[in-house]
């Protein structure tokens, strides 16, 4: 994990939070020979929430996972095109994917706390698993700050040593958010973080997204249009031309515009529920 090249060195973590904008150009995303998403161009602004919407299977998750190089974890998966975060082209051969993932955090659709770890250890996982030596007081600070950031502190402060799997689904998801922000990423990706949750947990997480917006660049995939309208500044609509065809970015605009007066007919149709 040593910073071998200058490129990598410039990608080292900053201690103060530096939210970054993301520029995507001509991105084609493949699973083996299957072209899943085609020709995406977009700019995701820093310190704001960008929502990705669109029908199932149009490639929202696939696209999201290219933003922290999680896509290539799947055997045979690859991309063409450019993703630039703060002047670094993520798919440049000199860029270390592991380093990218330390700076672009991710929250998954299903809560996935580590079953062998306690609540506190789950929060510290990103640091501990990377062999970062922490003093006890530092570790306690990180745990408290991250859990407070994830709006979970009050519910779990008396049982930090208990297993993370013992929490409810909504609490587990907030624990996963705490785990993601404990490493102080610059960008936070969320793939339908509320789809497995009840309305109360959902609103807790939406509140959290509102608070995190000031420090992080957030990209969130959601199936819920009201949620997109509530939490995001900008919205990108993805669609499929047909079964077996690649997904495409249809339009990206400020959320207000998308939901009141979209440029594209297809967006209008999707949002008004005429299809999808």
């Amino acid at each position: 994990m040593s910073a071998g090249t200058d490129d990598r060195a410039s990608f080292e973590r900053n201690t103060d939070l530096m939210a970054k904008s993301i520029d995507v150009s001509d991105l084609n995303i493949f699973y083996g020979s299957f072209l899943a998403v085609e020709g995406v161009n977009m700019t995701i602004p820093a310190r704001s929430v960008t929502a990705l919407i669109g029908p199932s299977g149009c490639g929202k998750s696939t696209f999201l996972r290219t933003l922290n190089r999680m896509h290539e974890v799947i055997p045979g998966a690859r991309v063409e095109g450019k993703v630039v975060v703060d002047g670094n082209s993520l798919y440049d051969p000199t860029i270390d994917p592991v380093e990218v993932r330390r700076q672009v955090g991710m929250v998954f659709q299903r809560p996935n706390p580590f079953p062998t770890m306690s609540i506190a250890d789950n929060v510290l996982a990103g640091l501990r698993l990377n062999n970062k030596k922490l003093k006890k007081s530092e570790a306690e600070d990180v745990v408290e700050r991250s859990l407070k950031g994830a709006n979970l502190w009050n519910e779990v402060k008396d049982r930090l040593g208990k297993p993370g799997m013992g929490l409810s689904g909504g609490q587990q998801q907030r624990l996963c958010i705490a785990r993601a922000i404990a490493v102080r990423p610059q960008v936070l990706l969320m793939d339908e973080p509320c789809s497995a949750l009840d309305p109360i947990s959902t609103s807790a997480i939406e509140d959290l997204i509102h608070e995190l917006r000031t420090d992080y660049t957030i990209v969130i995939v959601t199936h819920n249009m009201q949620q997109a309208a509530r939490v995001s500044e900008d919205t990108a609509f993805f669609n499929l031309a047909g079964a077996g065809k690649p997904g495409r970015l249809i339009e990206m605009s400020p959320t207000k515009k998308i939901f009141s007066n979209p440029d594209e007919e297809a967006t209008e149709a999707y949002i008004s529920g005429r299809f999808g």
Partner: protein
Amino acid sequence: MTTTAPPPTTPPATPHLPLRSARLPRSAPALVAVASLAAAGVLALLLGWGIIAWAVVAGLLHLVAITVWSRAVENPRAATDRFVTSLIWMALIIAFVPLVSLLYIVVENGAGQIDGQFLTYSMRNVVGEGGGIYHSLVGTLLITLGATVISVPIGLMTSIYLVEYGARSKVAGWIRFLVDVMTGIPSIVAGLFAFALFALIFNDPGIHFGIGGSVALSLLMIPIVVRSAEEMLKLVPGDLREASYALGVPKWRTIVKVVIPTALPGIITGVTLAVSRVIGETAPLLIIAGSTDSSNFNLFGGQMSTLPVFIYYSYTQPGLNPEFAQGRAWGAALVLIVIVMLLNLLARVLGKAFAPKTGR
């Protein structure tokens, strides 16, 4: 929530649904079983049958009686249910007969042998009565430990390759195939292999030492460890790996710190099963570890006695006073069984201790 309930009205007359039907009393199967045993017992006494004929007739009587009774009182579906349930119970009992009788006979013959001297004396200079299995106990424990130390790292790393790196590659397919072939190697062949290998290496056609036995046993253990660990690693949800990668944890550290700890209880169980499988092996140890009457703590030099080999020689070559040697053989067999049972208990305790806790 607080609306007042509507005034009670007479419930509409629902047509009577035949939800209830006659049932036999809960004790019916037990009653019938006792009655069948008694009836068959009377027949057995009158006609002078042996115990097997008695059991078979009692079983048949029970099947017929419970089915007929159920058909008369309940309904045909319940009767079929009772019939099949009884069949399954009988299969269970039949399966238990060999296990229980084996344990019974070993305990009956072996328990009397076991005392302090039996466990702490070797057979050095013992003719006839006395002596003990200390040398064989030590040999078995050391050789099995050696086999475990060789097999677990190799087996675990192979399974990690198969699950985490090879996955669907050709190489992994070949390894799986070869591991399956290895599972079927006769143990005597493993012993001959180890013997030939070390005889060649040390250019000594009469070579005997403990570690050779460990190598032979590890040939039998490795495939079991690989296969069981592979299954356990495959059970670890991909979500957890992705969660770890997404935190910027490199792959190897994800494996060491997330995947293996999550699969650890299952891996421990698999290793214990593999140990239990090889700890009673006789043939390979006969060939390469040899046999001796004295204690030998050195795995790397000299013959080493083990419990199975000790049992084998005590029974086949009991010497002048066969009853003493044979008694020792039973005692050693009991000790071997107890060791395997303790190992299984230990595996359960460890499995529990390492199991992911839900805290609920």
